[in-house]
Structures are given as structure tokens and as C-alpha cells.
């Protein structure tokens, strides 16, 4: 099933446009199609045309990946299945947590899997603690939702301590 080019809902309308001799296929869900047909005079920049869903839909038949769907990032809590449905990752650590699943996708999109370009001048060696912060913030959100205020207070202190350490190193 193709996904809507504008959001990630299943596409129900398939529009083929021919303009200036160029054939273009547009797959839209019902609400986006309505919006598209009504707003022909409101131009929009097309930079955001989203190729990730097309790439992801190629993977939907892969059975091995379907089994990996339940894998979850220990820091932000996103599952690979959620990533596949929304096309957006949950935190920087997902590139490590889902490495096995993401590599073929990256290879498919970019043809390469090794960065070759700018490096931050300040070595990013602090990243372990940065990821720890993401994890603590996720736990904090859960604690607040469950009205576990004692735990929330403890988590806030822990976040504050790590942030202070990081700030001290930066200056």
C-alpha cells in the first residue's frame, strides 16, 4: 500500500498529472487530496516533498525487518515500527539502537554509509552523557504522566547534575 506523499496515512487517491509533457504521479490520502484539489491557487514550496516514505515502503515486504519491528530505542522509547510508519526517528541514539535495520536503508538512499565531510571542532566525546540525558528526560515524562512526583524530582536532580557537568566542561 502506497503512503500519502504529504503525511504518512495510506493513500487512497492516485493522481497522475501531465504538465509540460512531464508525467508525475501523486499519491494522497483522502484529507490531503481534498486539500490539494481545493487549493490549486495556493502555491507551496516543494522542498519538503518527502522521499523517505517511498524508500520505506520498499522495505515493507521484508519479513526479517517485520520481526525487528518491535525493537525499541532504550533512550527515547521509539520502536522501529513507529519509525517506519512516521519516517522520522526519535533521538540521535536510534542510529545506534537500530543500526542493523537502518544500514540497508541508508545504503539505498545515499549509496554510502560512511560520513565524509565536516566534523564538529569540539570532539563529540561527551555523547554518552548526552544520550543519558535523553533517556532521563524520557523517564521524566513517564514519571510525570504517572503522577509519580517523587521519582520525577529525583530525575530532575539527576538531569541537572549532568547538565552542570557538561556546562562546566564547555567553558
Amino acid at each position, binding site marked *: 500500500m502506497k503512503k500519502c*506523499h504529504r503525511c504518512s496515512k495510506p493513500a487512497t487517491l492516485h493522481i497522475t498529472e501531465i*504538465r509540460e*509533457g512531464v508525467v508525475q504521479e501523486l499519491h494522497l490520502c483522502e484529507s490531503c487530496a481534498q486539500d490539494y484539489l481545493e487549493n490549486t491557487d*495556493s502555491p*507551496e514550496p*516543494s522542498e*519538503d516533498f518527502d522521499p523517505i516514505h517511498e524508500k520505506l515502503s520498499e522495505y515493507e515486504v521484508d519479513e526479517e525487518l517485520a520481526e525487528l519491528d518491535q525493537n525499541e530505542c532504550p533512550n527515547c522509547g521509539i520502536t522501529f515500527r513507529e519509525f517506519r510508519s512516521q519516517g522520522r526517528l526519535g533521538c540521535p541514539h536510534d542510529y545506534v539502537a537500530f543500526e542493523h535495520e537502518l544500514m540497508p536503508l541508508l545504503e539505498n538512499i545515499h549509496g554510502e554509509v560512511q560520513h565524509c565531510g565536516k566534523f564538529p571542532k569540539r570532539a*563529540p566525546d561527551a555523547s554518552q552523557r548526552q*544520550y543519558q540525558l535523553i533517556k532521563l528526560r524520557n523517564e521524566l515524562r513517564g514519571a510525570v504522566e504517572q503522577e509519580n512526583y517523587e521519582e520525577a524530582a529525583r530525575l530532575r536532580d539527576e538531569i541537572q547534575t549532568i547538565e552542570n557537568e557538561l556546562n562546566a566542561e564547555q567553558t
Partner: protein
Amino acid sequence: MDLESLTHTSGEWLRGSGPDSDIVISSRIRLARNLAQYPFLSRADDSVRGETSDLLRGTIEDLGLPRRLSYVNVGGLVDLDRQFLVERQLISREHAESRGSRGVCVSDEENVSLMINEEDHLRIQVLRSGFSLDECWDEINRIDDALESRVTYAFSENLGYLTACPTNVGTGIRVSVMLHLPALVLTKEIQKVFQALQKISLAVRGLYGEGSQAMGDFYQISNQITLGKSEEQLIESIRDVVPNIIAYERRVRNALVKENRQSLHDQVSRAYGILQNAQTISSEETMQLLSSVRMGINLELIDDLKMSTVNELFIHTQPAHLQKLRKEDLESAERNVARARYLRQRLGGNGSEMQN
């Protein structure tokens, strides 16, 4: 930043100056960056969004960049104002339509914009008039360096800058050039350009409209891959191919003038005449006619109109601009009337309110 005052001006990048500006409208580079210590925005609740936006805004305002920046709280704007910023290319449509705390820092000349809490925590964008990718890169690289000395970006040695969408990972760079190609469209030669670019994995898109639906004969050429090549290599891949397209468009224009001067002159003059006299006109028709007029100026078939005026009209005749100018909400049919009136005023046609 006072949005009302912007309705009568336009960004420096529309000036129609700079190298090859008869065909290259603008050059643009954007970088996608995220803060290492926060989740990406799809997993960010209101409090995290508030923290990333406060942190980034504060850091940007403290940088002491040579350009003066103003902050616009995009989350606090009404829909019309957000649409207005999209039309000016200061924010993306996605940024306009998302929810929660978000904003943009914009330079006075509108050459630089830093979108906070877009798809990534930060999207830096530099725009220039004409074919000026090196200038864009110099400036955006300096801004990025300055930021990087104060915040910790999400980065890995293997995968580079880590982004919310895997299509941007690595350099996080999108290099694009907006071209005006009316002669290639008219002769249907544009298809050959599409085919050639697809082979070298560059993307071509229309200026407005989803996908490749191009209005006003504008096409944006940009890199598709971001990982495995350096920023300079990716810029070069665009810089190498654009001069060929420019030369192609010029060649076809000259051939059209040589073989068909009278009918071309007729088409251009009719387009100008309609824009000066119409009583109601859609956005699409306006774009198409302005495109003809723009080519007419370049070919010296029209001599009483400035390129910068035509460039500006492409932006100022769009829905949010018209409504801000009229200071009222307008339905589509009312907009068409307002658009025609505005064009008559600006182009000094019959019934012009500003005619001497």
C-alpha cells in the same frame, strides 16, 4: 520583527543581481542540525520543545553575527502570517504547519534564516540572488562554526550529523539553485534536462506545487544524497551542472528570437498587456504571464520594466501577501480581483490608481 513592514519590501535575494541572474533566480544552502542532549522533535513533548527553542534562540542571539537577526515566534502567529513567511521562503511549509513552540531568526536582508524546531531542532538557511553557491557556503559554514562552539550537536564519526530523517544524515546539507527556464519549457527540451539530472542523482522540482508541478517555469535543482560526500563535493555537483543548463536555455532563447522573433514578441507583449489590464486573475495565470514578461525583459523585448519588480511580483501576488497588503481575509475569488488590481497598480496599466 514587524511583519507588516515587510509587505512593501522584498528580500535581497529577489534583487535580480548576481552572476547569471537572467536565468538563476537564487542560490540556497541549508544545514540540518540537532542538539545531542534532546530527543528529536517527533519524541519531544511541550517542555522539551520549549527548552530546545529557548536554548537555541538564546545561543543564536548571543553569537554576535555580522548580520542583525530578529526573532519571530512562529508558534504565536496566526495562520495568515505563517503562510506569509512561507511565501517569502523564510520558513518551510512544514515549519508553518507543525505544532508547539517554534520560531525563526531572520536577518534584515532576509538572506539568512534559522528555523528552530522544524523537522530538526535547527535548520540554517542562506539565500543569495543569482548563481552564488560559494558565498552561501562561506556564510553558512561560519554561522555553523559559531554555533558549534557553543552547543553540542548530535554527531557520530561514522554517520556525521544525525538528523530526524535518514535522508538528511551525514552532512545535513541541501544545496539548491532556482532556475527560470521558459525557453526550455516552451520547446519541451526541459525533459532532456530532467533525464540528465536524474542520472547523476540530482533532484529537479518546480518552485511551487507538490512534486514537479512547476509554475512560472521555475525549477529548483538540488542534491539528493547527503552522506558519503563532503559538503564541497556536493556543492560542486550542482555548480558543475548548472552552467550547462544556463547555456542550453540561452541557446534556445536565441534560436527562438532568431527564427520566431515576431511571434515571441507577440506572446511577451500580450502577457504584459493582460497583467496591466486584467480585472480578475488567478495565481497560476499570473505566474505564467510573469514568466513570459521576465523572459521578454531578458531578450530586450520589454524595456520599461525592471527585473527586480517582476521578481518581486512573483512573491507579492501570492495569497498571504495580497491579504496582508489589503489588511483583510479574502476568499479565492476576491483574491483574484485584488491580485489584478495590485498588478495594475504596480505595472502602471489602465485603471491604475497610481497612474500619473
